[in-house]
């Protein structure tokens, strides 16, 4: 029997460069109210939500146990609340396990991140490196991605022009997404002249600083009808961890994303990822990562990404209609933004971006320097 979990409702606020007028509790509360309003779910100890899985990060919130600050606005007063501190896709995987284990029928997943609060994202991600060998060199997630971009572009003949197209396309797609971060439109020429910040990465190749909050209600397949007449099913999940030292990874590829994808596809019974999905959302924090993740998630033949892009593959295979992380989602929540787009598409609620008859979607999220940890989700209608 294919084990699967129902997604009953999703809620989000608009991605913005700086939500100065709200603290993150207020951002989360809006998503919480929307979920309750959409589903009528309660927190009754018998029939209601008994466990909330949150996703946030203490360093970016500048606060120890930062889930303590949102326990009431996620409804978890005198209820369970467990914080997964990785990309939000893993909070979904964790919630899926809580349900399939039989411990909980209903799990609310809530995520928040306010990147505009810290004086510098790079100072925070520099702290992910060890204090003696890497941190003193000033390594952070940007410079780690710089190494990766060079290694990948050399091997895959993805060029600066391809990256420019990635950025333009991301902005174009996001313009149709009312919840996406509002960026000025940009031409490929603008991108090609955008200043280098960490060769070969240019400023426009990097996801901009963004504040956002998101919520999803998951429940057993049997009880989905109580909360929605338009359930989407999470049928596959897999993740995998890579080595820490950059020198001990082949930065031109990601064997770990390949493993994570394989685990998710095995669980969901996906035979050929090149044809199975009607929509694909890959977590492209940097322009070079979309083709790279596409190759390693089995969506494109290894080494064929450049040709695939030139042949318009991204639009044929409906990749990142949401605009992707490249348009702007905060660290920790990129994968949840991908998952949210897939669920909206499968529910037929993607408005101008709607892909007719979309029934099967792939979502992906990554954590750590240059994608040290990957998670893949399979959604089906």
């Amino acid at each position, binding site marked *: 029997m294919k084990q699967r979990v129902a997604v009953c409702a999703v809620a989000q606020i608009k991605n913005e460069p700086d939500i100065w007028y709200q603290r993150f509790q207020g951002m989360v509360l809006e998503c919480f109210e929307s979920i309750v309003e959409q589903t009528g779910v309660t927190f009754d100890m018998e029939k209601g939500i008994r466990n909330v899985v949150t996703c946030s990060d203490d360093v970016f919130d500048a*606060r120890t146990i930062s889930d303590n600050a949102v326990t009431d606005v996620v409804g978890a007063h005198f209820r369970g609340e467990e914080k997964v501190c990785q990309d939000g896709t893993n909070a979904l995987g964790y919630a899926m396990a809580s349900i399939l284990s039989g411990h909980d029928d209903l799990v609310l997943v809530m995520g928040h991140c306010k990147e505009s609060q810290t004086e510098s994202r790079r100072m925070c991600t520099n702290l992910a490196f060890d*204090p003696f*060998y890497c941190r003193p060199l000033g390594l*952070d997630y940007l*410079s780690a991605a710089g190494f990766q971009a060079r*290694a990948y572009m050399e091997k895959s003949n993805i060029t600066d022009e391809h990256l420019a197209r990635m950025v333009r396309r991301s902005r174009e797609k996001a313009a149709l997404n009312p919840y996406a971060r509002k960026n000025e439109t940009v031409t490929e020429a603008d991108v090609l002249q955008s200043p280098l910040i960490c*060769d070969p990465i240019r400023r426009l190749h990097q996801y901009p600083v963004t504040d956002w909050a998101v919520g999803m209600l998951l429940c057993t397949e049997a009880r989905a009808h109580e909360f929605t007449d338009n359930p989407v099913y999470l049928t596959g999940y897999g993740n995998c961890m890579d080595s820490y030292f950059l*020198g001990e990874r082949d930065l031109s590829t990601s064997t770990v994303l390949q493993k994570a994808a394989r685990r998710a596809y095995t669980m969901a019974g996906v035979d050929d990822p090149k044809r199975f999905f009607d929509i694909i959302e890959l977590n492209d924090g940097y322009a070079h990562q979309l083709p790279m993740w596409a190759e390693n998630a089995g969506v494109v033949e290894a080494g064929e990404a450049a040709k695939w892009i030139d042949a318009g593959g991204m639009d044929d295979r409906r990749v990142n209609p949401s605009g992707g992380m490249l348009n702007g989602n905060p660290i920790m929540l990129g994968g949840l933004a991908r998952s949210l787009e897939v669920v909206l598409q499968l529910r037929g609620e993607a408005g101008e971006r709607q892909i007719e008859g979309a029934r099967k979607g792939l979502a992906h999220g990554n954590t750590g320097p240059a994608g040290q940890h990957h998670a893949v989700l399979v959604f089906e209608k």
Partner: protein
Amino acid sequence: MQKDDFSKSYVVEGKLALPYTYFAGRVGSRFLTTLRDHKTIMGVRCDTCSKVFVPPRQTCERCFSDIRDNWVTLENKGELINFTVVREADKHLPRKTPYILGLIRLDGADTPMVHIIEGIEPDKIAEGMRVRAVFAGESEGTILEIAHFEIVPPCGMRSRQISTNS
């Protein structure tokens, strides 16, 4: 009180500041004091995987064997196999920007190590170049016991042409 009346919202400048004391451990300390006192770079070897790791560690991540005593002395020079150029200044950076971070496979080691490359212009640097460690004047207690790596001129070219400031 209207739900989205933000007239009273504002932002308070603050900070998160706490004292920390990190320990390199026995293996790390041996590596760092050897850099400082003997200007020598050490790695550790995993015999099962027949790989020499630098920086050194107690355990081989792949086969989990204990390799803390398998010290190997490495050359102070090696090959640049990847690099990036950090161009935007920030408080956690050890050098003024732009500065070059390189992945350097030291002769005798299997795993490339990240370090700073100096003495060459960003647009002149290329993978495959030979580099050599330049040790720091006074002790930093971290990998910065090596100040940076400089380019080793291919034989025949005098080093003065390449290294503009050393």
